[in-house]
């Protein structure tokens, strides 16, 4: 699967918070079968929140740093995500340096919490080590609704 779990960034405040959105579709290949039908795995719901956090780190540092997940103190998924749900992720920075950040956050569907996580510890890495900076910046523009540069 294409491992991008954020479709839009709706708002962000440098080094403070981000709200992002992911629409889900039955056409995606991320669904897990259950006796009652397909659901998004716990891990991918958590990943959507963590990817919001890494975009906040990248935007806050002008794409210089990106986050790698080191630890999660606790995460709870009170209900499942099903095809057609629209996820809204909201991550809040509790602390941040040039080496690491700690965040907490929520994933909601229609205002109902589907995942809540605390103590999300991320190592901040040189973003160029992971991806081409031009590609990352282009995707950032798309997520922010600015489209491709002309």
């Amino acid at each position, binding site marked *: *699967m294409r491992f991008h779990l954020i479709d839009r960034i709706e708002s962000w405040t440098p080094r403070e918070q981000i709200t992002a959105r992911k629409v889900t579709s039955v056409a995606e290949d991320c669904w897990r079968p259950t006796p009652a039908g397909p659901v998004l795995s716990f891990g*991918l719901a958590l990943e959507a929140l963590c990817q919001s956090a890494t975009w906040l780190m990248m935007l806050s540092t002008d794409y210089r740093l990106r986050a790698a997940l080191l630890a999660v103190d606790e995460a709870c998924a009170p209900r*499942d995500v099903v095809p057609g749900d629209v996820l809204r992720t909201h991550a809040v920075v509790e602390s941040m340096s040039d080496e690491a950040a700690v965040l907490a956050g929520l994933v909601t569907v229609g205002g109902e919490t589907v995942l809540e996580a605390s103590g999300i510890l991320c190592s901040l890495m040189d973003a160029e080590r992971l991806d081409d900076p031009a590609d990352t910046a282009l995707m950032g523009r798309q997520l922010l609704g600015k489209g491709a540069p002309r």
Partner: protein
Amino acid sequence: MTTMMLVPGFDRVVELVPGERAVAIRNIPATLPVFATHFARFPVLPGVLLLESMADLAKAALGDGHWRLRTVRGVRFRHFVGPGDQVEIRVEVTGRTDQTAQVRATARVEERVVATARGLALVAAEQPWEGTQ
């Protein structure tokens, strides 16, 4: 009981003692589609997919019924896992009732611990599952 049975998502089951523990191997070939985007310059298996493997093996270790991962506690990712690695996942059931189960999990690559989960809390899933109606 050591068995040759398959657990979805794993390439080999080393040990499976229903209700108690399980050990299984998941190979990480470079052909996994996730490596195309995670990341282009430095392919690494997303930690959450290791967490999912732990949960999958936990469900197999519980042995019966349908289980849903509800809560994780104390999850640590200590080293990157990438193409060519063979990950050995061990889970141990630390508590269980009819409706809930607690499982501890560890992932190793060549004896090096790459990830741990102090607690996976699973709940018995009844049909229809919450959120799927």
